[in-house]
């Protein structure tokens, strides 16, 4: 029974916060509702027994992606009246996208119900392999069966990362960098001198 209560709690909060993401007037509030939605989605994942995916969702999306979102949205000075101005113009496009998404969802569910896809059980719970945890199963698949695809995905990401760095990197010549090893290697003898000048005489530096 607690399972059912938990499911409806997570699901209701998830849908409500997803609606509030697009309804709230302030973009910072939108991002915070989005974070709540991610969090509740992670809760649903735990309920179907996919705890590894749930943790990944929280670590990657809530812990990193949403922080960057929040960062950007907080720093930007967005004018909402202007943003909302294009609402009627983009409305048909939005409807078309929504219909496409709905069709895909129905198609996917239909294909899944028809069987033959060995993703999980038809009641929605993930298929658990006897005696193996989530992490071991995913690890076995990623690093065993789909090793080359996995490595290829890694390479694509690496190229994208290098590309982003090359595009945004700029060499600054007007700043003086700090050479930490040089600072640490400096000894007191090189940096200070001890002199006893006669009275009335200055010190030659």
């Amino acid at each position, binding site marked *: 029974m607690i399972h059912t209560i938990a499911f409806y709690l997570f699901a209701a909060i998830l849908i409500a916060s997803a609606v509030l993401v697009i309804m709230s007037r302030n973009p910072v509030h939108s991002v*915070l509702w989005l974070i709540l939605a991610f969090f509740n989605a992670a809760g649903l994942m735990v309920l179907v027994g996919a705890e590894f995916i749930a943790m990944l969702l929280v670590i990657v999306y*809530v812990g990193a992606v949403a922080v960057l979102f929040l960062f950007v949205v*907080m720093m930007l000075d967005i004018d909402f009246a202007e943003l909302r101005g294009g609402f009627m113009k983009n409305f048909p496009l939005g409807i078309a996208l929504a219909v496409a998404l709905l069709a895909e969802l129905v198609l996917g569910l239909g294909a899944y119900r028809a069987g033959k896809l060995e993703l999980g059980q038809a009641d929605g719970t993930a298929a658990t392999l006897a005696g193996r945890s989530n992490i071991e199963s995913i690890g076995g698949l990623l690093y065993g069966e789909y090793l080359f695809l996995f490595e290829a995905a890694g390479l694509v990401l690496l190229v994208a990362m290098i590309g982003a760095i090359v595009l945004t990197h700029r060499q600054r010549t007007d700043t003086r960098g700090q050479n930490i090893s040089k600072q640490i290697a400096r000894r007191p003898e090189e940096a200070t001198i001890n002199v006893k000048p006669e009275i009335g005489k200055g010190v030659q530096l």
Partner: protein
Amino acid sequence: MTETFINWGMTADWAWFVATICGILLIALPLMLGVAMIIYADRKIWAAMALRRGPNVVGPFGLLQSFADGLKVFLQETIIPSAANKGLFLIAPIITFTVALMAWAVIPFNSGAVLADINVGLLYILAISSLGVYGVVIAGWASNSKYPFFSAMRAAAQMISYEVSIGFIIICVVLWAGTFNMNGIVIAQKGHVFGFLNGFGFNPLLFPMWVLFLISGMAETARAPFDLTEAESELVAGYQTEYSSMSFALYWLGEYANVLLMCTLNAVLFFGGWLPPVDWAPLYWVNGFVWLLLKILFFFFIFSWVKATVPRYRYDQLMRLGWKVFLPFSLLWVFLVSGYLMATGHFA
């Protein structure tokens, strides 16, 4: 505990529910008491290193100082700046405090004494500690004030930076332990070095990772020397500038609960958790919880010691340390550890 409640005539569902609530209270209440005492200990250690007396007026040896402070902030008025975003301003300290308590759910206090014995315990801790930044960022933004906002920006960048190297350090430990379960990690450390030293930290290959973890832990909890989020010489009081009374106290409690959590993680991941330091039968007569507590207190002393003696980092130095020193070093170490384990047939 669930069985006890079933014997009292509850259905299995309700027994589990009540047992979990009891477990949460059993962890959270002593933790709050511990936080109050650890704040006192921190002030005493800091004072001793500065040749001062520290709190010594309220109660014997000033032991009740934290409670007096608590009572004081409880009786004060909560001031909300008129330009602040009211809802978020009040939610932010609650988030920090709640998140600081949540992570304790998977900490094993003794053999089998853990609230949620889940497969992904260590990942759960990583996930929860990455949530901690929201309390600070939201506070900085909702205060609608310059210095808190600067502080929030710093906190976000700092916590993300050090989480990366903490992730790699954790991978080294997990590779050796072969599990993400916290209890499993503790048990994997039994007789780890020469068959009688309990703890990955005694392993020469993992010792550098422990040093990195200790320093990253200080940066992650924004403790001195990495307390740039509340650097009083630059940012007034950082993200807490606009906070008063209980909302301020919640930040304080959350911060120290996080520090205690980092000390506990040091003990659990690298020094055998509830195991005695040496795998010798008479030492097992002492309760495992006592060993864990001693280790936590030892690491907390190190945290205090560092706070009392090391000057604050500059922000660019902090970023340099995180990204240019810790990240490559821990990445290299993942490579070394996995290479060593493969070569010695650990995974066979």
